[in-house]
């Protein structure tokens, strides 16, 4: 029944478009070295800030690097950050959420810590972390994932609290099922549908946050071809070469928009009650 629902939701045109765009972005990320016309890091001081041409499709930046190749490689960075953040966020959140939901003892303490984390603005935390331990992919990931964890924990906790009192869980208990097995076999599966949906949102917001951090100069090292970095460098020459901001900007918005549309569609499909209400 769920499969039918999923297929029906996915068949609407915005969702199909979003899926196609995501497929294209993934293709670009995987085959970036093949699709790129040049090395994204190769400097060419003689061709600085050149206009789009047959050799430089999107033009070049202030160091003469090929903007087109950099934007393609930027898709790699974005997807790695997005998928990584979603995976880590969900894994950690699920673990904490399980403990908190199942053991009331943890609940009071851990949830207050989570509330604390939620109170800190994500960007501020990221900037603080990076100024403490220096820029790099790992730091950026931590900075992006940490603010997302409380949301995942709350989600998992809610599901566990409801499912924990289901008679089938009590039946399993009285059948002598040990706790780790019980959690894995009877409780975790019901958290998965909402987690998949939450994952897409983390994915989208991670891509966005990485771009923001890089744009602010608090993200990945400047030589990395990330969309945020490209835009940050293009900012100064906006009047001369608007493409340096425009092209990575378009890629960024389309990717984030598609991920969000897909996430909404999955929520509607996996939780039909919400779909009807909105």
């Amino acid at each position, binding site marked *: 029944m769920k499969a039918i629902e999923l297929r029906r939701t996915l068949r609407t045109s915005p969702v199909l478009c979003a899926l196609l765009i995501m497929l294209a972005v993934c293709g670009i990320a995987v085959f970036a070295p093949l699709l790129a016309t040049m090395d994204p890091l190769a400097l060419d001081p003689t061709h600085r800030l050149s206009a789009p041409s047959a050799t430089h499709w999107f033009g070049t930046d202030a160091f003469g690097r090929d903007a087109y190749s950099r934007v393609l490689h930027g898709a790699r960075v974005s997807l790695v950050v997005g998928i990584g953040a979603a995976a880590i966020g969900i894994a950690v959140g699920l673990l904490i959420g399980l403990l908190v939901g199942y053991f009331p003892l943890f609940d*009071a303490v851990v949830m207050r810590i989570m509330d604390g984390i939620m109170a800190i603005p994500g960007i501020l935390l990221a900037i603080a972390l990076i100024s403490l331990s220096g820029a790099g992919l790992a730091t950026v990931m931590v900075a992006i994932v940490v603010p997302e964890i409380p949301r995942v924990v709350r989600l998992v906790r809610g599901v566990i609290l409801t499912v924990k009192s*289901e*008679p*089938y869980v*009590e*039946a*399993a*208990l*009285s*059948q*002598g*099922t*040990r706790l780790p*097995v019980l959690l894995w*076999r*009877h409780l975790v*599966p*019901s958290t998965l549908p909402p987690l998949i949906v939450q994952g897409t949102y983390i994915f989208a917001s991670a891509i966005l946050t990485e771009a923001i951090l890089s744009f602010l100069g608090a993200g990945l090292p400047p030589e990395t071809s990330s969309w945020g970095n490209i835009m940050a460098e293009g900012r100064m020459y906006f009047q001369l070469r608007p493409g340096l901001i425009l092209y990575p900007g378009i890629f960024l918005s389309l990717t984030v928009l598609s991920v969000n549309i897909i996430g909404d569609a999955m929520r509607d499909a996996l939780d039909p009650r919400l779909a009807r209400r909105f």
Partner: protein
Amino acid sequence: MTPHSARRIAGGPAPGHPVLSIEGLNVCTAGGRNAATVLNDVSFTIDPGETVCVVGESGSGKSVSSLAVMGLLPPGELRVESGRILVNGVDMLTIGPAALRALRATEMAIVFQEPMTALNPVETVGFQIEEVLRLHTRLSRKARRERVLQMLESVHLPQPERVYRAYPHQLSGGQRQRIVIAMALILGPRLLIADEPTTALDVTTQKQILTLIRELQERHNTAVLFITHDFGVVSEIADRIVVMHHGRVVETGSRTDILSNPRQVYTRSLVTSVPSLVPAAPNPIQPDCILDVRKLGKIYAGRGVLKRVKALPAATDISFSLHRSEIAGIVGESGSGKSTVARCIAHLMPASEGAIVLDGTDIARKPVGTLGTARRHIQVVFQDPYRSLNPRMRIGESLIEGLTNFGETRQAALQKAGALLEVVGLAPEALQRYPHQFSGGQRQRICIARALALEPQVLIADEAVSALDVSVQAQVLRLLREIRERTGIAVLFITHDLRVAAQICDSIIVMHQGRIVESGSTRAVLTQPQAPYTQSLIAAAPGKHWDFQNLCPLPTAEPDYPHPIRSGLSTPDIPGVSHAQPITRRQP
């Protein structure tokens, strides 16, 4: 002109004219080409002042017909295909939504099963009853309030002024249902539809509500369409009975016709599967004691960091013993602590005090991890068959869970599971299927199979047949008895239904407010109850004057058979029953 005055001008139907007449009603699912028929050519009538009971098992279409009358069929899901529904001669299906809205509450009203969800939790009940008057009359504010207070008084709520300002959660289940009835009857509708109005209530409260409906009906000559699955209730209140099955009317007749001389095979099987209140022949009690519960107590600790919350004793001083192949019943109303006792014994929650001695060892205080084989010797079958099996797991996986936990190989466990399914009357192919592919009764059989897989010494059935239709209930009870005979298992049978207890239990423990008030053999407790509470419980059991198996009235000392509810207009409050105690839901 308000609809209210409109009706008065019209003067209502001539006497002898039916208030409600359903003619050839067909309802189907709104599914386009593959629409399924839900109601098939349903016809019946109700005269003024008459009570017609529509009975049937779940899925028979009895609720759908009542919703169709009120014009409340879920849009987009069910639609009326053909037929007429005449209320006072006006066809509900053709008058349009605005006219229908005007007729609700003035001409016809409905009372639902669950009074908590039928009331708005954020408004006072006074405001909610007054809303009916605000919408349908032009009374002044003062007159409205007066009218509401009058109505509260006529449904016998104490201190109407206080109740007027109360919120639904501050009232008990029975009080809430009185409010809903007050709301339904305040404009004096000619037709009252009551859709299982007492199913969520305890028997003693049920009796009071039935009496109230009868009293108001007689005062206003209201026609009552009463939907129920409970033949006990039917035998007390019905003038005529409509039996429904699979969306069709199987049989219509007077109460005596249907209950003592059913013409259709289906009606006969339905009536005769109602368990009798007369205790069945007891099983001789074996001398060896399997489970000994001594002075068991459970206190729900007060929680709350900032303010002190009072600790709540849910069970106090519970002592009894269970012998080999004995079926012992724990009966009581909601909140009596019977489920608490069951859950403590099953080790689903720790007992606060006392001992639970199984095979010579006290397991009451053992941490769950060290229970070892004691865990497998006490197994539970829960009330709700729809929630007791993991919907994501195949039946086979659910059945072998316990066996593999205790070291059996997958292969051997699956073989055993297949054999167990045959024991409970299902084909071994069921192993490959998922829970949603089975009916409630079949699922309960699967749950019993799962409990038996570990070859326990004690089986706890916590309201295990309460969610099932009577015919299915009878089958499951038979199965339990067979298993007891075959394996010598001892069963602790928790139920609120005295009829079921009378049929299956060898001994009965009556609980009230967390304490045992009476215990003994089923025969002794049911025929010569000593405690006043037990007496009131038995007195409130609906249909105790009718022998459903033999289709005739029971010979009783009390000669008030003809209409027990009618003759006793105001039942005195039952001793020992606290009305202040809110009843929010049935025992889990």
